[in-house]
């Protein structure tokens, strides 16, 4: 049986391992020659341990990965409503742009004069992101959102130290924050103070006030937060942090909701990162790559990582040297960033233009609110006020009826959909965080809502029916306990 989305039920049977398909002596002929090289390497250095890489013919390799690909759910195949992940459609022109020889086949050590196109694109992207975020300066180096968080908190440290203020040791993080926030603060050597959310899903102002002091480095705030809610007193929070001498970090994970709606730079944030693999449609690549440009206000500019891209008065573009930025925290990775991802983001922004970006933010919010209107008759909302681009349901009621959020997620797979984010944010029991994005047609939103409602109805009468889900995926539920107790992390011949 096939579902409308066709995303799950057409998956093939499981695929053997490369190591099971291989036979000694089987090989393609991709590169050959060079045997004389063996005499050039002193024996003390040569490989004595076996190199048991599998030996396969190219047709076998092609079928292997084609079959593996078919075992995956993807945005190309169907709706992927993972909350806070912004799984919108990934335009193909972006991929083609990134693969142009002038972009894909240039080396980061090439002199500036041979990569003027790449530098121009990056410089323009810096300018575009500054305008979109309402900030003054941008670094494109961070490889992901978490990497940008780390970069920013290290810059906060440098900022305070440059002012001779060395007593600050604490970073404040709301209890609804992504785990990357406290982890990034800890990597920067700071302690983490968690503040609670109030009944409306905002940062609890009293708790926040109690947490602030002259030992506070900064405050990490996601807005809209992971409940999909706009922080109602965002300026008050920013002002209070500033009054205590701290800085406010904007976690831009949910920036899709703000496109053309509001700019973090206008709301009081000192900086914000942008997950271009969410907001600007670059593919998530089964876990990565992303890119996490960090946009900052003027007062943080001296501390940005080096190098950045500048345009000289002659109109030439170049990478700045470390010597030009004595207060910089240094480089946070090799080279100027995940260029191939940034090219895609640039292509997307230029394709949509100002008006298209405005429409994106509004459509994302419209889609989430519409979907919520459809499903709320059978699901409880965790914090019941108007959400932005995503919303968080709680399956607490269903749990009492005998099936939990995980069961609902797995039942959605049998309905042909990828499940939403479940069990996050941590502050909502049995949470289901749903982000439809602006690129799902109304018919798909309707079908997804129908599936969710069907599952809720089934749970009301026969909760056990979903305990065994999924039954239509290539595999049944996997034993994560066994995987963790006796880890098998690579192939070992029997």
């Amino acid at each position, binding site marked *: 049986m096939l579902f409308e989305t066709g995303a799950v039920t057409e998956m093939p049977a499981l695929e053997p391992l490369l190591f099971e398909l291989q036979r000694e002596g089987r090989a393609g002929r991709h590169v050959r020659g060079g045997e004389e090289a063996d005499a050039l390497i002193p024996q003390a250095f040569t490989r004595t341990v076996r190199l048991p890489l599998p030996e396969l013919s190219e047709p076998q390799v092609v079928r292997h990965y084609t079959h593996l690909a078919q075992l995956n759910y993807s945005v190309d195949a169907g709706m992927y409503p993972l909350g806070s992940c912004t799984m919108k459609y990934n335009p193909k022109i972006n991929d083609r742009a990134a693969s142009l020889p002038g972009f894909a086949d240039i080396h980061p050590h090439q002199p500036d004069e041979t990569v003027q196109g790449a530098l121009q694109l990056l410089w323009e992207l810096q300018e575009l992101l500054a305008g979109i975020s309402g900030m003054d300066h941008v670094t494109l180096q961070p490889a992901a959102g978490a990497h940008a968080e780390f970069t920013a908190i290290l810059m906060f440290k440098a900022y305070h130290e440059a002012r001779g203020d060395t007593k600050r040791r604490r970073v404040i993080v709301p209890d609804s924050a992504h785990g990357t926030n406290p982890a990034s603060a800890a990597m920067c050597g700071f302690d983490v103070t968690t503040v609670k959310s109030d009944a409306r899903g905002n940062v609890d102002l009293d708790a926040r006030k109690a947490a602030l002091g002259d030992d506070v480095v900064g405050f990490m705030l996601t807005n809209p937060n992971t409940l999909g809610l706009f922080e109602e007193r965002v300026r008050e929070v920013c002002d209070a942090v500033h009054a205590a001498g701290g800085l406010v970090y904007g976690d831009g994970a949910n920036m899709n909701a703000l496109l053309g709606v509001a700019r973090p730079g206008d709301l009081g944030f000192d900086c914000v990162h942008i997950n271009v693999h969410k907001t600007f449609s670059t593919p998530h690549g089964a876990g990565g790559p992303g890119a996490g440009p960090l946009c900052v206000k003027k007062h943080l500019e001296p501390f940005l990582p080096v190098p950045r891209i500048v345009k000289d008065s002659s109109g030439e573009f170049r990478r700045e040297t470390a010597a030009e930025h004595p207060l910089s925290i240094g480089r946070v990775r090799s080279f100027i960033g995940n260029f191939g991802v940034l090219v895609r983001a640039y292509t997307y922004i230029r394709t949509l233009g100002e008006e298209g970006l405005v429409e994106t933010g509004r459509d994302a919010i419209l889609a989430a609110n519409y979907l919520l209107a459809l499903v709320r008759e059978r699901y409880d909302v965790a914090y019941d006020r108007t959400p932005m681009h995503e919303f968080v349901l709680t399956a607490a009621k269903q749990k009492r009826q005998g099936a939990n959020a995980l069961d609902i997620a797995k039942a959605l797979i049998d309905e042909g959909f990828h499940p939403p984010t479940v*069990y996050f944010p941590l502050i909502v029991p049995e949470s289901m965080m749903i982000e439809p994005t602006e690129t799902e047609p109304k018919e798909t939103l309707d079908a997804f809502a129908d599936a969710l409602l069907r599952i809720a109805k089934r749970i009301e009468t026969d909760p056990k029916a979903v305990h065994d889900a999924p039954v239509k995926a290539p595999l049944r539920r996997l034993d*994560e*306990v066994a995987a*963790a*107790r006796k880890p098998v992390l690579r192939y070992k011949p029997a």
Partner: protein
Amino acid sequence: MSSVPDDLKYSKEHEWVRVDGDAATIGITAFAQEQLGDVVFVELPEKGARVRQHSSLGVVESVKAASDVYAPISGEVLERNVKVIESPELVNSQPYGDGWMVKVRLADKGELASLLSPDDYRSHIGEGSAAAGD
């Protein structure tokens, strides 16, 4: 209902203590292992290590949670349970038996007074004394 044996003392952080002369055996309670779910990993201090009351003694992990085990009393580690490191599921199946964690030589017997009685622990986890022996 979680089992709370009557012959043990308890901490608010859900450890149990079985005193035997100068020595004491420490583990986590049935309630704690139920909250954690299937335990997949246990980390314990080496023999000879000194542990301080209320400080971290080790870690127990399930697939989706990691939890510190706090020392309910101070002392020197006489033995750690190698079996529970190899088979963490013992924490689930026999929390008061083969799922024990460490044996310590008590540094200060006075600390025992700060521990909870079985009844106190039952009310701490919201279960009346009727649960005793379950």
